[in-house]
């Protein structure tokens, strides 16, 4: 890509992440996941898509179409919701840090 894309690529690299939702103690129930954006570093705040939360809504997805609903509290989802966020190592980490981790590359089974 041309130079004009540099800043956008760097920001995308630093801000991109994957969010997954699962049920505590029920790995067989499967995993719901989507992409997200890291909004801030400390505390770590992430914005992602709401679609992965519909299976966990206490009142069902109908609550999302209520005209008055513009936002719902975190506890509108079941207690067994487990969330995880994953992101790539920072290309711009302080010197030496980015080399941390296992130098060899591998092809992990997905």
């Amino acid at each position: 890509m041309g130079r004009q894309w540099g800043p956008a690529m760097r920001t995308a690299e630093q801000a991109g992440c994957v969010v997954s939702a699962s049920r505590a103690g029920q790995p067989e129930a499967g995993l719901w996941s989507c992409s997200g954006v890291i909004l801030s570093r400390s505390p770590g705040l992430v914005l992602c898509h709401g679609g992965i939360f519909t299976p966990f809504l206490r009142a069902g997805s109908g609550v999302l179409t209520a005209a008055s609903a513009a936002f719902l509290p975190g506890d509108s989802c079941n207690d067994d919701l487990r969330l995880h966020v994953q992101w790539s190592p920072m290309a711009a980490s302080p010197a030496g840090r980015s080399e941390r981790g296992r130098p060899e590359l591998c092809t992990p089974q997905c």
Partner: protein
Amino acid sequence: AGLEPRSSARPRGRPLQPPRPAELLLLLSCPAFRAHFARLFGGDAAEQWRFASGAPDDEVSEDEEEDQLRALGWFALLRVRSGEAAAEEDADELGAAVAVAPLGTVPKGAPLLACGSPFGAFCPDIFLNTLSRGVLSNSAGPLLLTDARCLPGTEGGGVFAVRPAGALVALVAAPLCWKAREWVGLTLLCAASPLLHAARAALVGLHPGSEVLAAQLPPEVGAMRSLPLQDPGLPWAAAAVLVECSTVWGSGVAVAPRLVVTCRHVVPREEARVLVRSAIPKSAAIWGHVVFATQEMSPYDIAVVSLEKSLDGIPMPVPAEHFHEGEAVSVVGFGVFGQACGPSVTSGILSAVVHVDDRPVMLQTTCAVHGGSSGGPLFSTRSGDLLGIVASNTRDNNTGATYPHLNFSIPITVLQPALQQYSETGDLRSLRQLDRATEPVQVVWRLQRPLAEVPRSKL
């Protein structure tokens, strides 16, 4: 536009950090997004549109599909939990805060970079932060559309601008849009700025005393005075107009203040009365009538409309004289939304220039072209020169599938001399020549293989 192999600046494949636990702070939506969504895709149009992450034939239960539709405009604000030991590491590893582009900063046609992880957490080592490039194709309030190709799993991914550099413009709301069972090739986005306004208000409303946390949400880039806010956009896109002839509508392009070119299949008869609407710089509707339309048998599906008044304030496009395969091009047209929205811009490259007797007679591009775009202009993205008139995209008659990204335009060099003569003298004779295109040209436009040589008669 499309998924691009990444530059080697960041060796992909480095081991990812282990997933970190997080907690849901709140679920939020943007009321204005939902209102525009209902206007553009609800009501009578609802039957035609599908946003499910699978193809129309995929086995998705109705409940699942309904859940997906209900959640389409919803997003979640999470806080990453970190134990003591990781806190310091988190502070570094979580990366930089982003800056957010105020709504309306990025004009139609401006380049965008989408960043998401196809298939979500399925295989992040390979797919995390996959990039896709495109442009802002259309907007209706905070509801944005881009032709950057996104796949299931990228919902929630960030979309970033070139100008303001690296600013977060939107998040992916629905990567795949299907209209009348045809993949449209556009991705539905929700603008980030109103989302973050909603998040701030919700945080403080739900958790009194969380002003400090709310202050952690990223500022809008406008707060940094030094950055230019307005991207110049595409001034030449203003020449694209909407053409309505009774119940039929399509696109067109103004080639002179009182002359619009469109497709014959949009305005089928000479003398028909036509309403031409321009959207930029301001909305205007001007009546006109068809002064010329090629005959049904002509390979050049062209009509010319003379307007009763001038289209003011619209820069007249410069007709191109040469075509360069591979050059960046843009199509501007009223496909997909017609009158409900202003013109859409899609980007791509000039993928082929077909010649007959060393004269260009057909152009092909990789831009997304939809029903309703016919008659619209094809521009060189670099120069803004008018390259051609979009005539059609591609349909496979066997399967019925439509391919938006393979489309055909009539080179402006075929039309320009005749248009100029008519514009200056009112003489239609040159335009009438379009009805007498040679057999090889007809063979090309029938998408038939040209005969290597004319078969000899056996008599």
